[in-house]
């Protein structure tokens, strides 16, 4: 089910939390929502889940609008809120049973569904414990289980892997990827590596506005930072190699890191590999290593969110 967000605007007092945000998420796509604290990610997700209503703009989930059909939308979305609120006095199995009932899952399907969720989220050994007794990681799993129990068409997860151990993070990532094959998944996270590993598309939001939108590769290409290349050239004196490299007009900066190793910063359009190769053949040197250093998502994030 497609999600279409149109000119979404929401203010709290005089502060605009979300400012004319528009984007679209297709079925079978995993969208990663990135942004610094207070950027408007959670507010956007709360509006998507019909908890808050926007000042302007609209959201369509499939053919349903948040204004006209909020009840229908709540039936087809699975939402994990940021602070993962749960009824702490209930035990895990009763809580999931209650959520399944609320979602009008037929009575005969409730128990198999609950057991399936307990298995999927690794809660089998904790099912009779009250939620108050659970560790943060297990509570997060209960939160995930309640968001997924009714097999939702659209899954909205606000920082889903907070508090999980590395093994569980990998398991949850795999689960999200599996869900994302057939369903629409929107997730936010502060862990950029997680977004990169899980999401098909990244959307960076800052001060309520979208500042970057595309796949990780697209964002890297769009990024206006220079290209970085790590090279190791041998067959001559290190100072000669350094001096000759520094004379190349395409190279903007050069750092000699360890012996015969250089880090070169150059323009994105420059054919630096060809120039280095020509320089080496002229001087009878040889290239032992040439590795392009990828622009990390962190760099792009910092670039678009820092003014």
């Amino acid at each position, binding site marked *: 089910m497609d999600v279409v967000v149109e000119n979404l605007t929401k203010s709290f007092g005089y502060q605009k939390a979300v400012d004319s945000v528009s984007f679209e998420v297709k079925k079978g796509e995993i969208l990663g929502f990135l942004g610094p604290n207070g950027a408007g990610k959670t507010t956007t997700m709360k509006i998507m889940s019909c908890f808050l209503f926007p000042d302007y703009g609209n959201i369509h989930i499939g053919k349903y609008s948040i204004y006209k059909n909020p009840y229908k939308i709540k039936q087809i979305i699975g939402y994990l809120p940021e602070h993962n609120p749960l009824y*702490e006095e209930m035990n895990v199995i009763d809580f999931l049973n209650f959520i399944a009932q*609320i979602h009008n899952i037929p009575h005969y399907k409730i128990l198999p569904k609950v057991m399936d969720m307990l298995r999927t989220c690794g809660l089998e050994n904790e099912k009779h414990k009250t939620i108050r007794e659970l560790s943060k990681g297990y509570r997060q799993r209960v939160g995930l289980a309640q968001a997924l129990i009714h097999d939702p068409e659209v899954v909205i997860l606000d920082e889903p892997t907070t508090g999980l151990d590395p093994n569980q993070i990998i398991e949850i990532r795999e689960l999200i990827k599996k869900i994302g094959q057939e369903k629409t998944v929107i997730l936010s996270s502060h862990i950029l590596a997680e977004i990169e590993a899980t999401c098909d598309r990244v959307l960076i939001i800052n001060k309520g506005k979208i500042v970057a939108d595309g796949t990780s590769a697209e964002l890297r290409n769009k990024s206006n930072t220079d290209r970085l290349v790590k090279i190791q050239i041998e067959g001559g004196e290190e100072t000669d190699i350094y001096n000759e490299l520094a004379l190349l007009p395409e190279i903007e900066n050069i750092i000699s890191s360890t012996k015969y190793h250089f880090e070169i910063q150059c323009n994105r359009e420059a054919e630096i590999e060809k120039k280095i190769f020509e320089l080496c053949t002229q001087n009878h040197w040889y290239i032992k290593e040439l590795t392009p250093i990828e622009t990390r998502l962190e760099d792009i994030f910092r670039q678009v969110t820092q003014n």
Partner: protein
Amino acid sequence: MNTVSILINKELSNSFNSWSIYLGYILFFCICGFFSWLSTDNLFYLGQATMNPVFGVINWTQFFLIPALTMKSIADEKRNGTIELMLTKPVKTADLICGKFFSNLIITTIALLITLPYYFTLSFLGQVDHGAVLLGYFGLIAMSACYISIGIFSSALSRTPVTAFFVSLGIGLCFQFLFGTLAVQIGTGFFADFFSYLSMEEHFDSLSRGILDSRDLVYFGSVVTIFLALSKFFICKSRF
């Protein structure tokens, strides 16, 4: 309706899984029993087989215990964030409020049932007007419904249960005591009639005397509806 019954079921099982509800019942039973049978002006001194003094004691005990029962209903959901969980599920705000209201009403009705042994004892001791007792119990349930709706409204207004308790007690005190006193102070005229109509004691008295008047039913129904509607308004307001 199905959603409301699921919510009532959840609220009741959570309440009865906690020891505090049983403590509340014991406290209620003991306070009512002490003032009805053991205090200096107990039922034996009255020389009449009437439940009216017991109803008076129950009324005042409920007046203090119901705010304690309802103070957590919405304020706790807001503080723990579970209201976000509930309102992003296929649950309407009205369903959530009705679930809280009816579960609390069931809990208070059970508390009233605990006092039935007093009625049975009294009926052995003398001739009791059974109709008046039945209407008296109905009046107590109606009054509980009013105080529960006031409690839920106060809880919807407040961020913490303690604030909700005092707000609820304050509003309740107006209906229980102040409006009646004001009516007596003013004496006659429109405002005296107006405050007299607002006083809960006035409507309960006629029921406990065995008079079923449609104006009393309209009054209790209106108080419940107005405060529950206001609760819904304040919960929805925070979402816009």
